[in-house]
């Protein structure tokens, strides 16, 4: 039953493949240890960068949450304004504030013309 071709084929297949079974490479272990150390350093850097990124994100969140809202800022402004006596005094004087705002827009010559006009 044995086919000589078949037997030879099986033997030569095994012989051919077994020649490449084990390929020892000089210095390979040292290269691997070097690569593993580099990989270890890289992972430490990556770990610390993620920690730093997370810490920065927390800091930003804390700063954002502790900053007063626009409404709170308005309330604070009004409260300060309520305690500002000079502002209250200006209110008593009526439109003095408006005048002081308008004054730069009024030319001195036109005021003089109005005052010097006959019948004024």
């Amino acid at each position, binding site marked *: 039953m044995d086919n000589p071709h*078949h037997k030879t084929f099986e033997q030569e*297949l095994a012989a051919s493949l077994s020649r490449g079974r084990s390929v020892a*490479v000089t210095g390979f*272990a040292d290269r*691997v240890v070097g690569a593993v150390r580099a990989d270890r350093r890289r992972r430490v850097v990556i770990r610390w960068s993620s920690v730093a990124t997370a810490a920065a994100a927390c800091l930003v969140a804390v700063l954002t949450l502790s900053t007063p809202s626009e409404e709170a800022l308005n309330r604070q402004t009004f409260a300060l304004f309520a305690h500002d006596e000079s502002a209250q005094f200006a209110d008593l004087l009526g439109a003095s504030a408006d005048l002081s705002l308008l004054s730069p827009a009024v030319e001195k010559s036109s005021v003089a013309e109005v005052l010097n006009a006959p019948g004024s």
Partner: protein
Amino acid sequence: MSQEEPTLPDDEDDKRLMALVAEGDDDALRLLVHRHHARLVGYLRGEVGSQATAEELAMEVFIRLHRAASRWRPEAKLSTYLIHIAHNLVLNEWRRRGRKPTTALEFAAEPGDSTQQSARRVAELDEAFQRAIAQLPPEQRTAILLVVQQELPYEEIAEIMGVPVSSVKTWIHRARSRLRELLKDFYGNE
């Protein structure tokens, strides 16, 4: 490249060394690599058809082994685990390249061959086998390499490839038939 065969790995020693590797012992890692790299590179060379790529992939296997050292449980032999990682890397490599290896390896004749003629015959046969093996479908190539080259039992091959033993047997049978067909010039039609 030296052809000396490192001493055969001992499972208990592998477990002890892996525990040390998990603690960051580089000398233990060096010893593990020295024990296992030759067969790993041999297997990978058969798979990818290139010494340089085989060495790169073997390097990656050991880097992954180191990363997984603390989680590794000695349920299987370390050599099986290493070839399992290597097999996955080979699959990724083929996906990345979008093709299978098609080039045959250049095999130097053994220096101990008796005559030049027999050396030439050996070189020719090796080249023909490599070329034929490179033409096999990936799963058939892996199965035939693991059974004939690495002399692993079917159960271990099934574990490495993550398939039932019956699939391994089928692939090996098909691989043998296909190889005989591809090498009919050498062996004639049967």
